[in-house]
């Protein structure tokens, strides 16, 4: 049995409370507030206390999918990435880079947001990148 405590940050609001997730054999079993984090100092709200619930939700969709004959069908990573790359290049060649847009996320990390806008700007060649925070 492998027990571990990992210190991380709550994903639910802009407070950014520190928390410790406890796992046994790759399963998150508990959430604890971080005492040393300067923001929450040992507290969490109801959303924070329930964080582990949503990660393991049975509704997670974990297979890459492509729409074929009207339905989303399971495919391999290689197939899906080849398809996306080819389609994006085709649309870029046919209609120009500004015919493609990127909607980034306030739920993703800094590093993901950084690479996503780099994908838009450096690889596709458009500044059509925004995120939903306005909303």
């Amino acid at each position, binding site marked *: 049995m492998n027990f571990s405590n*990992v210190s*991380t940050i709550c*994903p*639910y*609001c*802009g*407070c*950014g*409370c520190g928390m410790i*997730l406890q796992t046994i054999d*790759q399963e998150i079993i508990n959430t604890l507030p971080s005492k*040393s984090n300067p*923001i929450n100092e040992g507290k*969490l*709200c109801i*959303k924070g206390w329930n*964080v*582990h619930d949503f*990660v393991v*939700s049975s*509704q*997670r*969709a*974990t297979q890459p*999918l492509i729409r074929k004959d009207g339905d*989303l069908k399971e495919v391999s*990573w290689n197939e899906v*990435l080849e*398809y996306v*790359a080819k389609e*994006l290049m085709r649309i870029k060649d*046919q*209609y120009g880079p*500004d*015919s*493609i*847009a*990127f*909607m*980034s*996320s*306030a739920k993703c*990390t*800094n*590093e*993901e947001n*950084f690479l*996503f806008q780099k*994908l838009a*700007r*450096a*690889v596709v*060649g458009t500044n*059509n*990148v925004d*995120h*939903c*925070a*306005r*909303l």
Partner: protein
Amino acid sequence: MAGLAAAFGSGAMTNSIAELEDTKCIFIIGSNTSEAHPLIATRILRAKEKGAKLIVADPRKIQIASYADCHVQQRLGSDVALINGMMNIILKEGWEDKEFISERTEGIDALREMVEKFTPEKVEAISGVKEQDLRKIAELYAKSEVSSIVYAMGITQHISGVDNVKSLANLAMMCGNMGKEGGGVNPLRGQNNVQGACDMGALPNVFPGYQKVGDEKVTEKFEKDWNVKLSRKPGLTITDMFPAIEEGRLKALYVLAENPMLSDPDLKHVKKALSALDLLIVQDLFLTETAQLAQVYLPGVSFAEKDGTFVNTERRVQRIRKVIEPLGESRSDLKIIQELSAKMGYPMEYEDPSQVQEEIARLTPSYGGITYSRIENDGLQWPCPNEDHPGTVYLHKDKFTRGLGLFHAVDYVPPDELPDEEYPLALTTGRIFAHFHTGTMTRKSSALNKEVEKGFLEINPKDANKLGILGGEKVKAISRRGEISIEVLLTERMDEGVVFLPFHFAESAANVITNPAFDPVAKIPEYKVCAVRIEKIDEKKEG
């Protein structure tokens, strides 16, 4: 954040969360703090225990208002008039900070002229707030030793959102509450990493660190580092994207962990637009309403399955850590982007997220001194320009980012859609404590869903009585754009004539009926006000 950037030169929370506890006066406007940011509310209540004054301006009797020294219920969309009215009194009484105004700011004369028009009588006519209450909140805010302003989406989600924020900046500068501990103008970010998404240039007009697209020096710096030619033309905002799809200018959309099918102001419209795309790619955790329309779905991972950083509302960059391996076939979003990029002929070589952070630091001056080893424990607040810099607790200490703080003479503009005979009630939307934004994450959690299972419409018992509606009854809420059916909750929290609808529930998505008119600068849709009519549902017909 365009309002703050115009006034101060930088669009982020100016002060820090911990400072709230020791300030002398807190002015909360348009933030349901105890439900949306519970742990910030805790700080505010602690400040209150230590003797701080608390002012709340909110159309609803929100929970934190019950602790306020003064709670005013201004009419929806009347914030500019209310704040101008406060400044009218402050200037008349000579409560402003004359030294701060002359040394640190510019533009006071035009503002003085503007607020002169906002006499208490006029403000009462627009906002419904009585002169004695207006006077009380003006005095509490201006005469306390140091006062902090706290606001959230109740201020920004208006057609006048940017004006509202500029008005708050005016008020803070007028009273010398900027660049000092316990003061400031403090937006509370809704989603956990909104600040980070903005900081990292997930915006059509700026690169990471708010460096302008089109600025030749900036663009060349990125071109050299990335070894490509870059576009100098600012891109489309989300609100501009949908019309662009309809006009056929936009063919492909790549959506990262967002659900515009729930969070966008005019849903019918959004569905039509998304279905018209040649290619819709959705990368998310769940088959959301948006993903169900996609050609391609890429399974990303939750925060517990990856390493990286989030930035909280007070600009603190903090580490998140991988707790478990990705579920099933899902992969970290970083890995997906890198592999896709390689297949498109532009390999991005990073062993792990810390190397991405190195690139961020290299290209983003305000992040220049942030490394994974420095944020192992506590995180760092930007600006942090170099490795020896301790980070910045509050902004604009001796001078504003833009040099002098700029006053804006802001006039009151009525909301785009006011109640009328046909649609007699004002509807406002917002969040409730157990759920998070569109609920993509929280509604999957059974414990949270139990707390508040269904959508509901809050209405004052007197209004319900007039319509012959009982608590818990299902009714139709109809606007010029659409209708939903929903259960009502009778509560004194609501003023007469105003109804409230939380926006987390797909079955009765508030955005079917809200108004997509948006602020011309920040392009934030006016979720906070629209006009509706409530109708009883005829049981026999509906079965």
